[in-house]
């Protein structure tokens, strides 16, 4: 197969590093073009359009099992710029320490998914600027005219991005993929008396055809802002807490941190050493899957050149797998799950593919119906989970549940608990799973958390 221009550069850089003394090398290149249109109060506020490229290399020096590592990057893809980059990485390897677990994956582990992941839609690069501006204007217009209490706006924006990522290593891997994305968001402000509240809604997809309509985005954002008006601060108490998908997603992000191999091998996670144990309620099944066409967490290979795959992380409450790259897998005596992730250079970290909670059977309304008094969380601010201890504390806003119905808005409160217990107390998982990003959760209900208020 013929290599494209960037693949050729990446392969050449790997070769160059090895010629200059590296025993192994890996090179990442990326290029991208971004467009962003922002409107506010029916007028264009800003337009931005540009492209950029970057290259990064990581070298390993020494014999297998006794290698040192150095990394470098540059935005200068000229011949001189790249040569400087390679030499800098080799120089840096001299000051690091031999690490018996460092090293590239074995050649036999490398590969690419053969199916079409639908990550790139050429139409995104050709979208008319005026059409994108009009989408943002329309979403804001719908929000502003939804209700007289929508008096102001932080604006609406339409963003699009197309890019290409290339990876090559000295074990024979060369690969690249293109991706596209576009998104529309609006942030209306509702006012009643002296008090203002803002909320937002957002849609994004790999192609414009898959976006929610501007009308839908504007309407939902306005409804959300309106329903926050006249929020109360409730008394401190322990009650059931329901997370809508947008906030459940943040909670799932905390679960990701706790199954991340980098935290596991350092014993920096409350889930370290718990493989095979029941760590959550039987309602919880968590999957990582980078092979689903069209989604934001999908890719043909990970950032070390391993084939993307599906991993069951938690199955009906039992911890089945951590998420690992080559290094963390070696540290734990396990195999990589194909979750290597990095920017453009440096040692790979661990990142999610599409990391999601499997949908349950009940609708959100059915879940809420069973609660006599509780909190429905629509926004989390600050705070979050402590991966080491599981302690959880976050600012929150939402709606109070009274006799099975959403009764009135609440704000300026916190919710707290411990993730170990919260996972076991997941009583319901909603049927409303939607992928709005690479981490996705349906509605979740936790039996009891502490609300701090008045």
């Amino acid at each position, binding site marked *: 197969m013929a290599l494209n221009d960037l693949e050729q550069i990446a392969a050449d850089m790997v070769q160059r590093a090895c010629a200059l003394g590296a025993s192994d090398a890996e090179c990442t290149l990326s290029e991208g073009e971004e467009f962003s249109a922002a409107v506010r109060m029916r007028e264009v506020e800003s337009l931005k359009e540009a492209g950029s490229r970057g290259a990064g290399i990581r070298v390993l020096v020494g014999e297998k099992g006794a290698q040192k590592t150095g990394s470098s990057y540059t935005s200068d893809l000229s011949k001189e710029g790249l040569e400087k980059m390679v030499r800098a990485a080799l120089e840096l390897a001299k000051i690091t320490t031999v690490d018996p677990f460092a090293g590239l994956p074995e050649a036999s582990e490398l590969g690419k998914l053969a199916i079409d992941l639908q990550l790139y839609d050429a139409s995104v690069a050709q979208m008319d*600027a005026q059409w994108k501006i009009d989408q943002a204007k329309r979403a804001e217009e719908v929000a502003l005219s939804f209700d007289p209490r929508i008096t102001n706006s932080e604006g609406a924006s339409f963003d699009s991005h197309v890019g290409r990522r290339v990876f090559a290593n000295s074990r024979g891997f060369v690969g690249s993929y293109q991706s596209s994305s576009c998104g529309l968001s609006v942030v209306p402000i509702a006012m009643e008396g002296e008090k203002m509240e803002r909320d937002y809604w957002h849609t994004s997809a790999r192609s414009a055809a898959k976006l929610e309509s501007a009308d839908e985005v504007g309407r939902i954002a306005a409804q959300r802002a309106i329903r926050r008006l006249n929020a109360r601060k409730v008394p401190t108490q322990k009650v059931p807490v329901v997370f809508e998908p947008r906030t459940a997603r943040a909670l799932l992000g905390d679960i990701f941190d706790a199954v991340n191999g980098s935290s596991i091998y350092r014993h920096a996670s409350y889930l370290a050493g718990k493989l095979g144990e029941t760590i959550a309620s039987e309602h919880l099944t968590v999957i990582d899957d980078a092979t689903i066409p069209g989604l934001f967490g999908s890719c043909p290979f990970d950032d070390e050149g391993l084939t993307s795959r599906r991993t069951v992380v938690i199955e009906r409450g039992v911890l089945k797998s951590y998420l690992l790259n080559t290094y963390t897998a070696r540290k734990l005596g396990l195999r990589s799950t194909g979750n290597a992730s990095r920017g453009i250079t440096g040692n790979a970290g661990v990142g999610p593919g599409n990391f999601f909670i499997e949908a349950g059977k009940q609708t959100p309304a059915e879940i809420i119906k069973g609660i006599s008094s509780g909190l429905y969380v629509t926004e989390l601010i600050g705070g979050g989970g402590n991966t080491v201890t599981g302690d959880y504390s*976050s600012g929150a806003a939402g709606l109070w549940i009274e006799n099975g119905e959403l009764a009135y808005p609440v704000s300026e409160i916190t919710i707290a608990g411990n993730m170990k217990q919260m996972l076991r107390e997941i009583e319901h998982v909603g049927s409303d799973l939607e992928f709005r990003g690479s981490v996705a959760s349906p509605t979740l209900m936790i039996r009891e958390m502490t609300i701090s208020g008045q």
Partner: protein
Amino acid sequence: MSFSQSFFADRFGLTEHDLENYLSEALSAGGDYADLYFEYLATSSIGIDEGIVKSATEGVTLGVGVRVITGERTGYAYSDDLSPEKIRKAARVAALIAKGPATVIKSGFEETKRHNLYAMLHSPNEMTLAERVEFVKRADLAARAYDKRVFQVQASYADSLRQVMVATSDGTLSFDRQPMARMSVVVLARENAESSPQHGYAGGGGRITLDFFLNEKTPEHFAIEAARQAIVQLGAIDAPAGETTVVLGPGWPGILLHEAVGHGLEADFNRKGTSAFSGKIGQQVASPLCTVIDDGTIHNRRGSLNVDDEGVATQKNVLIENGILRGYLQDKLSSRLMKAAPSGNGRRESYQHIPMPRMTNTYMLAGTSDPEEIVKSVKKGLYCTTFGGGQVDITSGNFVFSATESYLIEDGKLTRPVRGASLIGNGPEALKYVSMVGRDLQLDEGMGVCGKEGQSVPVGVGIPTVKIDKMTVGGTAA
């Protein structure tokens, strides 16, 4: 410094005539104002983990951002290639925002006055790599030596040198050379292999030369602080839940000001009427004991700048004076539209980003109370000395900041350490409950990163010991 001696003239052969041409191109379809932001950023970082120096990275990014403003509208484009055709292309793209006859710019530039707040002779990365790797090795050893219960240490060192040039259609030109260095240490401690670990974090630095880490705040200083926090947490009990009296220790707890008032006073939000502080200039928004300053001119501080990222010299701005709201943080766009003067707060993450009003170093002036007396005056409450991050919803004014080291106050004495918890309050209300302000103003050690609309910039905070009569603490204990 004359233009011809500047980094970009020297390195890329740019002339003043080139800059005029690019600005004319940017204003070729009209517009009130245009500027060019040239940036060259060299970074390096070193990390140790498990006693092994596992990473060492260096890199360079380079580019120019072109901005055109017409009324309230901004056009922006950038290029990572400084060739004349690429800069011209970016200028033409930025010009698409305007629709009219060309705006003619006057020829010639006048260099902006700027401060001299950080040593210009040496940059952090002029020290050899071998010398810098010693910092993380020393931190690793010191943290492990602090207590035998310490079992994991990660230490990192990072520095950067940013060369900046801003040329504007107003005929101003500014240069700056901005060093930055930071160390950070993360420690895990546990009683034994079966018990659950606890975590400690410390870090700091600024726009400094490397003798700072040799003479002032050593790697051992940060390592011991991180280890101390982790050990304290081993004995911590659950944090309280509900409203209580909170005493903030001096220094980093100044993040309260950053979240509670700083963001809400950024001029863009106030120009648009979207901040909980909008229209409140001259009103009482804090107790008369509170005077809050944002000051970009403090020597060597992380949030300081000789000139901001729009080429305006930074200054010391009074935000709240004796409890009365006095001023906003301005950039060029908002100050022009609000008919106010720029305040030196126009900042951006990089050449790829549109500048906006941002904080620099935000702190509260010292009061007159003895810090010990402040704690003694509290019958029941919480004393917080170390924080993680924070966040604010500027429209409702609700803000959160996360305490990572706190102690119960019982009958005027610090008793038990408590586990991490979020504190929540409302910006225009929270500081009205400040009833004592200590005489012990401290600035933080230099590790703050502020995020706004996807852009991160380094900032500083500071506060003396402060007593807040009522604040909501998000723990779990009844």
